[in-house]
């Protein structure tokens, strides 16, 4: 059992699932093994109906697909399609947020007032929208319009590209990979990977980079920035994490998915006195709203809402028998949830017109009538409380406190209003560098083990860790997001953390909020007058599994940051593609990918990289 997770609550619930006769993600993985070698190597192609084709990796059989594509073309095409899917997911999430801002500004979404006027005005200024003497609604209307235009803009580049250091912008222009429009890059990637279009793996991967950049400096950045405008810019907040946050005597509702549009309003709906009264009438002491995955990150960093767990715990939350409803929207929601829920009383409620789940109840979430829909959904959970079977309830006691909410603005505030103290700490070496640790869980690897081993090794070596997504939740569950965790850090980082009262691992939000990490990187480079690739930085996705992670990794590398993948991407069927990603890209974008399954060895790669970058900058 311990090969599945380092999280005790996970281990306990896997055991309960087994005795309850529930099939989980680990059982399904076992049923899939051995997994197809062609797929693992990325050398199967289903892009046209002359196929499906596959290349014999031993060179004994077919070396070309029916169309004539070789392994390089096929691997590159598959990679670019994964990037396009990941970029599309983040960017469509961003589109949802800006659409809500537009509806709010037009007066059609009364439940979404603008929470951060200062940020609204700062963004408006970036877009050269007049703010003086104008109403918030008028500014928001103009901003929402201009941001929506980014998806199909004809101006030739995305607005937030202006945040990137000049050297990097020049590099992107010279490589012709400056993102020109959010939808455009995804569309062009799909076009180029159609049969008989772009067959040159270098050309394909450059387009993959441009598409990923339209995510990191486009779709994701829009999702982050406008979520802050609508729901408030996060500032340090405390809460609790892991399955132990579920309450035996309360209505437990888990919000799972990604967009804060839904989750934020449900948090407010659950505080409705009428619904609380109904819950009490059912015998519940209250309504306990918990998050999971990135929705969990969105509401924990804005409201300190408890987070019940990360990706691999979604089925296990149901197995506690104590969850009255899981409300889902989009992304990373296992299709198995209704199946698991059918063995308990849990209701699975899907809310996005984009994501339906056979076996779930669907209540379309409507931003124009948000609070009423939210109340309706919460009421379903309250009514379901009395269907709970006490004999099936077993909530693991494991829980841990966290401190989260480190937006760029919050970091600046902690530093006294300027990045200079951070830059000085990096220069002096008390902070040797910064590593972004992000991404998913993957059942092929022991849950959270890679995240935690990697992070602990880094902070011990005076490297500040910034995290998002399921990686950040892993850190929350193990106490690494507490200021007290500074005791695990090296002397330099420890003293910085203690003087500022911050943890050695800063929770910066959900997976779209990796854009926040990019803002910090760009801002530090601008302060020092260098390119991002000159900085002592690295990125890592120790347990990644999703296509979004492929897009993220690619925009991080394309922005000049060395990135370590802890799970093997399906590119090894082409030596040329693998070589370009792990070594050739250094000469092109000033950064490469590394693949290292052993988290301790991966940490060493990051430490050595940071040491080399410091040396090049003339720092000790």
């Amino acid at each position: 059992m311990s090969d599945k997770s380092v999280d005790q609550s996970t281990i306990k619930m896997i055991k309960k699932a087994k005795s309850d006769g529930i099939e989980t993600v680990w059982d399904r993985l076992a049923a899939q093994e051995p997994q197809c070698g062609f797929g693992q190597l990325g050398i199967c192609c289903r892009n046209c109906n002359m196929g499906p084709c596959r290349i014999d990796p031993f060179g004994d059989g077919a070396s070309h697909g029916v169309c004539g594509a070789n392994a390089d073309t096929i691997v590159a095409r598959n990679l670019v399609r994964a990037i396009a899917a990941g970029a599309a997911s983040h960017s469509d999430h961003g589109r949802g947020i800006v659409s809500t801002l537009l509806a709010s500004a037009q007066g059609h979404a009364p439940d979404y007032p603008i929470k951060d006027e200062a940020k609204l005005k700062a963004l408006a200024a970036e877009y050269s929208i007049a703010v003086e003497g104008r109403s918030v609604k008028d500014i928001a209307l103009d901003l929402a319009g201009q941001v929506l235009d980014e998806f199909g803009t004809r101006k030739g580049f995305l607005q937030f590209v202006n945040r990137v250091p000049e050297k990097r912008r020049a590099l992107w222009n010279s490589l012709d990979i400056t993102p020109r429009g959010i939808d455009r890059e995804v569309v062009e990637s799909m076009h180029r990977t159609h049969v008989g279009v772009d067959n040159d793996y270098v050309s394909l991967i450059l387009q993959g980079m441009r598409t990923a950049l339209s995510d990191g400096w486009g779709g994701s950045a829009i999702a982050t920035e406008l979520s802050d405008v609508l729901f408030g810019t996060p500032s340090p907040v405390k809460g609790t994490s892991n399955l132990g946050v579920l309450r035996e005597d309360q209505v437990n509702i888990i919000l799972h998915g990604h967009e804060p549009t839904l989750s934020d309003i449900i948090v407010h709906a659950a505080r409705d006195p009428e619904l609380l009264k109904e819950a009490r009438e059912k015998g519940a002491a209250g309504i306990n709203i918990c998050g999971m995955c990135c929705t969990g990150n969105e509401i924990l960093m804005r409201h300190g809402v408890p987070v019940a767990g990360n990706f691999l715990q979604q089925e296990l939350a149901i197995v506690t028998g104590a969850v009255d409803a899981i409300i889902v929207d989009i992304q990373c929601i296992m299709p198995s949830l209704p199946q698991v829920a059918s063995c308990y009383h849990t209701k699975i409620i899907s809310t996005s017109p984009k994501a339906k789940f056979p076996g779930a109840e669907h209540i379309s979430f409507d931003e124009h009538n948000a609070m009423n829909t939210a109340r309706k959904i919460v009421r379903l959970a309250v009514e379901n409380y009395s269907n709970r079977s006490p004999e099936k309830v077993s909530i693991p006691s494991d829980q841990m406190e966290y401190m989260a909410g480190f937006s760029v603005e919050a970091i600046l505030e902690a530093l006294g209003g300027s990045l200079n103290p951070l830059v000085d700490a990096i220069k002096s070496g008390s902070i040797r560098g910064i590593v972004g640790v992000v991404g998913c869980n993957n059942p092929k690897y022991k849950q959270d083990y890679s995240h935690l081993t990697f992070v602990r090794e880094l902070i011990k070596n005076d490297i500040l860790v910034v995290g998002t997504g399921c990686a950040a939740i892993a850190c929350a569950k193990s106490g690494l997001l507490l200021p007290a965790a500074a005791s695990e850090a090296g002397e330099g980082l420890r003293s910085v953390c203690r003087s500022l009262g911050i943890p050695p691992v800063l929770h910066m939000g959900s997976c779209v909020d990796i854009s926040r990490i990019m803002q910090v990187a760009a801002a530090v480079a601008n302060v020092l007058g260098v390119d991002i690739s000159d900085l002592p930085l690295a990125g890592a996705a120790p347990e990644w599994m999703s296509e979004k992670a492929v897009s993220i990794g690619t925009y991080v590398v394309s922005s000049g940051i060395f990135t370590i993948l802890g799970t093997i991407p399906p590119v090894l069927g082409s030596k040329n593609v693998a070589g370009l990603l792990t070594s050739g890209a250094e000469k092109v974008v000033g950064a490469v990918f590394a693949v290292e399954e052993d988290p301790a060895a991966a940490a060493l790669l990051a430490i050595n990289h940071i040491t080399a970058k410091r040396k090049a900058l003339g720092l000790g």
Partner: protein
Amino acid sequence: MKEVLINAERCLGCRSCEIACAVAHSDSKNLLGAVGETDIPIKRIFVHQAGKRNIALSCRHCEEAPCIDACIAGAMHRTADGLVDNTGGTGECSGCWMCVMVCPYGVIRSEIDRRLALKCDRKCMDESAEPACVRACPTRALKFVVVDEFSRDRRQRFLDAIGNESV
């Protein structure tokens, strides 16, 4: 006599052999037809993971076949071609599963509705005279060869490696 022999290091675990075996034992004999059949065709080859290796297991048609010895119905027998088969013998399979219990490789399975023991029967050959699993193997991990040909290849590969090392 040719045997199905395996280059285990070439097996990618794609399970193409399993699909082909099932299709070859279907009524329609083609993938799209087979997936729509009411009586789902049953494969007789099994791809498993053993440590980091993938292994395709099927009946070895043993010279001293414990399944033949154990069969009390007289169904499991050796054919004139030297194969071990559970149909066309002196008696009919009664589904007592003695053969299943004695097979050291665990490659005899059941068609439970008909109480029939099922195994590789080589009734899957096409005009190329190769079994379906071998034809389907995209990496040629499965070979249908006479044993000495296989060992000659192995020997040659070893000699090539040694030769390259000494260059």
